[in-house]
Each structure stands twice: as structure tokens, then as C-alpha cells.
């Protein structure tokens, strides 16, 4: 295994972590806003506040870790993606700011305003949409390199069906992941009405999630044949992913083993996410940048990997403690304890 592969695997793993934890967060905010809109807010708010409030900053760090890490391991991405993404990434930051300020002002600060709750809910859909555009851009065809620098062709980007399929997939996946997780969490909290409602959401959003995912593979055949053929070489991984998907839906449908259902879902996304990532290899940005010509020097790569291992040694026990106190602590989950400062 080369240093390049180790570097990109670490980053991809953290991005996967972000996809899962952030999806739970984004989707929960949307369901919360939606139920406020439908006048059923009491069902979800408690569940959402109990789980999300202590962990949202941790969620955000996954993203920061990814973009700091990619500039560390692949400094050329700072030049390529930094130049191209000024507008989409700035918009994503503003949307993330709306979420952060919701926690700051509403949850911690007691400023209860419907406007914030709606903004918070909608930002949960727009953030994955704006971040997923990066994946579309990485497929190539939207960036031109001229003597004046790099240019992103917004018109081509926003008229491409690929862009919009990926946007829809990101939103459907967010809602699906979130609904499955929250079904499990609500069930642990012995909250019958919330479990039923979230179970319904999980089943509804399973359909568009799998349909758009399949659709994107088909669209890549025209957009980026090279990537498509590499995807096809990995067809069996996508097969495994689909079986895991079917398992999740079955368990949710039968109201059985919600914890295992969430485990299968994580497996489904893990396999699909890595299959996509492997097939994208070696390109970071088709056709301009590969992981080999964008890689940092050997000394820095080794230093970063050592720092990463040391950091993990510190983080994993702390994360375990956090989960034990808030996710796996029955009293806390069921609302019998509230020791907020």
C-alpha cells in the first residue's frame, strides 16, 4: 500500500463518517421542521434535542477534519478545488452557520422562534445539495484550465442531469439515513408514536434513495465512460450494498431489530461509498488531478499519518465515552436525566 492510498483512504473514511453523522443531524432537523409545519412537533422535538444537542459540534469536526486533511495530504487540491469552489463552498459555510446558530440561539440560548426552526430544517437539505456538487465537479467536464487560471462552467454544471441526480440522491440519502437511525433511537426511548412516525419516513425515503443511486450509475455511462467502466468492474460490491439495503428495509418493515437495521444501513453506505471511491481512483478531479501528482512530500505524509494514529488513540476512547453517556445510556435516552448546565 502506497502512502497515497493510505492518505486517501483515511480521508475517505472520515468523509464517510461525516456522511453518516451529518445525515442524521440534517434529516432530524428537517423532520423536526416538517412536523412543526404539520402541527405535530411534540412527537419529535424531544428525541432530536436529546440526541443532537451534545454531539453536533463533533459532527462538524468530521467535515473540518476532511478538508484540512485533504489539503495536508494533497496540497494541490487547495489550488484546484480552492479556486473552483469559492461560491459553492461559501454558500455551504453560510448554511452550516445557520445550523450552528440554531443550536447556539435556540437550543442553548432559549430563543424559540419558528423562523429559526424552519431555516434550520431547510438548511439540512441545502447543505448536502451544495456539498454534493463537489462530487459532480470531480467527475470532470465542468472545469477548464486556461492561462488565466481555472474556470468553472456554471451553466454546464447546472444544466447537467448528473448534477441534479446527485443532488436528489444526497437529499434522499440524508432523509433515509436519518429516519432509520431515529427510528432506532425513538424505539430505545420507548417513544411509541415517534417510532411509528419515523419508521414511516424511513420506508418512504428508502425508495428515492435507491432509485437515484441506480440512476446516477446509468448517467455516468455517458458523462464519464472511464469511471463507468471502473464502476462496472466493481459490480459485486454494489450487489452487496443492495442486499444490505434490502435487509434494512425488511427489518424496518417487520418492526424488528431496529439497531441491526441501522447497522445494515451503515454497511450498505460504507460498501457503496468505498466502491464509488475505489472506482474514482486515481483521480481527485477528472482529468486534471490524480492522487499521485497531487500528493504531498514523503516527510509530511509520514508525519500526518503518525499524527493521525496518535490522534485516533486519543479520540476513539473519548468518542466511546460520549456515545456511552448519550446514545447507550438508557436513563438519558428515555429522558429520565437532564443534567444540562
Amino acid at each position, binding site marked *: 500500500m502506497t502512502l497515497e492510498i493510505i492518505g486517501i483512504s483515511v480521508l475517505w473514511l472520515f468523509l464517510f463518517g461525516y456522511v453518516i453523522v451529518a445525515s442524521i443531524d440534517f434529516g432530524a432537523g428537517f423532520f423536526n421542521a416538517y412536523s412543526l409545519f404539520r402541527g405535530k412537533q411534540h412527537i419529535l422535538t424531544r428525541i432530536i434535542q436529546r440526541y443532537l444537542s*451534545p*454531539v453536533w*459540534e*463533533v459532527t*462538524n*469536526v468530521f*467535515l*473540518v*477534519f476532511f*478538508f*484540512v*486533511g485533504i*489539503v*495536508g495530504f494533497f*496540497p*494541490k487540491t*487547495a*489550488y*484546484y478545488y*480552492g*479556486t473552483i469552489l*469559492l*461560491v459553492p*463552498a*461559501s*454558500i455551504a*459555510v*453560510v448554511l452550516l*452557520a445557520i445550523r*450552528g*446558530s440554531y*443550536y*447556539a*440561539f435556540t437550543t*442553548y*440560548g*432559549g*430563543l424559540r422562534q419558528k423562523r429559526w426552526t424552519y431555516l434550520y430544517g431547510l438548511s439540512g437539505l441545502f447543505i448536502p445539495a451544495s456539498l454534493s456538487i463537489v462530487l459532480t465537479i470531480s467527475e470532470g467536464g465542468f472545469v477548464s484550465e486556461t492561462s*488565466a*487560471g*481555472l474556470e468553472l462552467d456554471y451553466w454546464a454544471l447546472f444544466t447537467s442531469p448528473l448534477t441534479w441526480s446527485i443532488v436528489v440522491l444526497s437529499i434522499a440519502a440524508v432523509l433515509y439515513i436519518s429516519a432509520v437511525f431515529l427510528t432506532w433511537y425513538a424505539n430505545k426511548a420507548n417513544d411509541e408514536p415517534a417510532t411509528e412516525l419515523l419508521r414511516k419516513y424511513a420506508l418512504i425515503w428508502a425508495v428515492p434513495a435507491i432509485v437515484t443511486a441506480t440512476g446516477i450509475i446509468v448517467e455516468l455511462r455517458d458523462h464519464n465512460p472511464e469511471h463507468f467502466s471502473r464502476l462496472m468492474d466493481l459490480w459485486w460490491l454494489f450487489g452487496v450494498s443492495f442486499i444490505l439495503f434490502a435487509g434494512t428495509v425488511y427489518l424496518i418493515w417487520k418492526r424488528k431489530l431496529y439497531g441491526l437495521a441501522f447497522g445494515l444501513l451503515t454497511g450498505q453506505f460504507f460498501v457503496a461509498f468505498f466502491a464509488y471511491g475505489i472506482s474514482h481512483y486515481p483521480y481527485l478531479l477528472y482529468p486534471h488531478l490524480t492522487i499521485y501528482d497531487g500528493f*504531498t*512530500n514523503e*516527510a*509530511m505524509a509520514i*508525519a*500526518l499519518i503518525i*499524527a493521525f494514529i496518535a*490522534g485516533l488513540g*486519543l*479520540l476513539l476512547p*473519548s*468518542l466511546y465515552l*460520549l456515545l456511552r*453517556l*448519550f446514545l447507550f445510556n438508557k436513563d438519558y435516552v428515555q429522558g429520565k*436525566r437532564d*443534567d*444540562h*448546565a
Partner: protein
Amino acid sequence: MGNEESVFFSRVLTELTLSFHIIYATIGVGIPLMIMIAQWVGIKKQDEHYILLARRWARGFVITVAVGVVTGTAIGLQLSLLWPNFMELAGNVIALPLFMETFAFFFEAIFLGIYLYTWDRFENQKKHMLLLIPVAIGASFSAIFITMVNAFMNAPQGFDIVNGQLVNINPILAMFTPAMPTKVAHVLSTAYMTSAFVLASIGAYRLLKGSNHIYHKKALLLTMKIGLIFSIATAVIGDFSGKYLAEYQPEKLAAAEWHFETEEGAPLMLYGVLDDGEVKYAIKIPYALSILAHSNPNAEVIGLDQFPEDEIPPLYIHYLFDLMVTIGMWMTALSLIYVLGTWFKMRFVSSKWFRWLIVLGGPLSIIAIEAGWWFAEVGRQPWILRGIMRTEDAATSSGQVDLMLLLFAGLYLVLAIGSIIVLTRMFRKNPVEQELADRELEKEGELQ
């Protein structure tokens, strides 16, 4: 938009983001230590007031942290979005502390979540306090790692450039530049100092606004003592920073002090105006600059005459430097008088006018932090990486920076207004007298 405009707007946007972020960042680094000290004193003295102090500070702190997370994410991304050429180079050499900073923050965020949501969960108060140690360590190490990157920009080392290629890269050497020790120490001690004075300012304000509770008096004395200790530390570190600058960045020191001609026994100029290259109306302290730079009244201090015109920072940094130092001195004196006055039971320290001075100290300390960072950043110009890369060559070629500037200005405005409203509401709705009474009731309930 031409490239010159891109550079200009990139600078303005970065300056705006950093100026806004540094308020929350400074508080974020300093307050965990204050909470820890208050809780520790409370446990030691078995004094409910200090414990409640810690608890109420923690409640306010979490709001500033949340906003700090948001602005920190913004600056983290903006570095790559606005300065892609710089980050490409920096990524190769100084990525290590940036990377470790995310770990430090990760660590802090996890334990902050736990700390906030586990008040009263432990039988033993001390166990709960222990959770704060990783928060304080994480916060301070975030500052240390980020300041290492800034130190690197001022005194780059740990690599060579041969034919335009980076070679011999040593990430550890790049972290431990000559600028690092004084810069890191200065950032940390001023963060603690500022946080203490901001909290003191709040306590003094409550006392002025009618609440004569002993709780606020305890808070005020504690924070003024901490502020005094760290302002003395800051003054000592400031002296070392002067010596660092004289040795490694003489142009920055010379521009800050309006020291034009290289000379021995150089005087220190305070304030004044520039008239055709002549310093007028300044307070001149003979030999002081030589002492600051080399601990020797007769030592030679390099002046701006040694540098080409296009490598000299803007001369207005003189005022930023003076403002920072003046406020620092003022706060040292103010806290010293307060602490001594309290010890010797002098009446005037609890007078209205003195308390107003303490109230004023909070905003003044924040202004000093701003002035200090503007001085640090503008004083490095025209370089983004001193001697290696000019700021104008580092900026993005994108034409939409001006729009993004408007977008972020709007965002920061909302965040600023929001945090002020929420923080004042939070403490007004639940005054400390009320909370103390509630806690008494709760305790009686438990005993029965």
C-alpha cells in the same frame, strides 16, 4: 473583476472573518480555564457561589463556542478558497499543525458536550470538574497549533526552494520556528487575560445595575486577580517578542516604532503623527527601543533604511501597536490597583466610577486583541509568507470574491446580533439571586 480586485477583496474578506472569529476564539481559549478555576475554588472552599459561577459561565460559554465553531469553519475553508496558491505551498510544509488542530478541537468538542450535559450527574463534584481538563487542554492546544502556522508565515523554515521546487521538507522544523515561542505564549496569555477581564466587566456591570450580591463581588475579585497575573505574564512575553522581532523581523519592529534610521541608543516613539517622514508630537522615551530590542540601551536597532521600499509594511501599524500596548498597560494597572485596593480595604475600589472603569475594561481588552492581530498581519505585509510569497501572488483568480464578501458580512452581522441578544436574555431571565434561591429549595426538597 481583475486580479488586483480579487486580491483586494480576498484581503478584506479574510480580515473581516479573522476580526470576527478572533473574538470568539479568544474567549473560547480563555473561558474554559476560568470555569475550571472557579469550579476548583468552589470545591476547595465548599462555596456554592463559585460552583454556580462556573455553571453560569459554562452556559454562556457554550453559545460563544457554537458561534466560534461556525466562524472557525469559515476561516478554515476560506484559507483554501481565497488563498489557493498559498495553501498549496503551506499544505506541503505546515499542514501538520493544521491537521493536529482539528484533533485538538475534536477532543475539546467531545468533552465539552459531556461536561455540559453531566452537571449533577456525578456524586463527586471533582469527577465532573475533571471533564473540564480535556476541554481546557483542547482549547489551548487549538490555539497553540494555529499560532504555529501563523508563526511559520512570519518566519518560514523547514524547507528549501530549488528551481521553484520545494525540497528538504521538515514538518517538525516548520512547526518550531523562531517566531513560535513568543507568539504562542503571547496568544495564550492574552486569551486568558482578555477572558478574565471580559468576565470581570460583566460582574462589575451587574454590581452597578443594582445587584449587590456577594456572588458578583466574589466573581469580580477572582477574575481581576486572574487578569492581573496574566497581564503581568503578557508584559514579560511582550518584551521577548520585541527581541524576537529585532532579530528576525526587524522591518516589522521598525515600522511599528517608526524607526527610520539604523542607530545606536534608539528611542521609543509613542503615538505622534508622520509629516513628510518626520515624526511629530510623539512621546519620545530615550534608549527604550534599544532596551526593548536588545536589553541594552546602547545597542544598534535596524531601521527601515535597510529595506527596499516595496518590502516595508504600511506605517499605520504604529498606531495599532501603540493601542495594543497602551490598553495592556492600562489593564495591568487597573487590575493591580483593584487587587491591592481590595486587600487594603480601600473604599474607592467599590465606588461607582471605578466599577465603570472595570466595565470598560472588557471591551477595551477585545479592542487590544483586534489591534494586536491587525498589527501582526498587516505588519507582515507585503508578504503572506515572509520573504517567499507575496500576498498578491497568493490570492484566488476567481471573480466572485466581492459577492462572497457581502454574503459573509451579512452572516457575521446576524451572528453578532444573535449572540448579543441571546446572551443578555439568558442572564436577565435567570438572575443569580433567583437561581441561588431555586437551588436552596431544590436542596431542601432532597433532604426531606
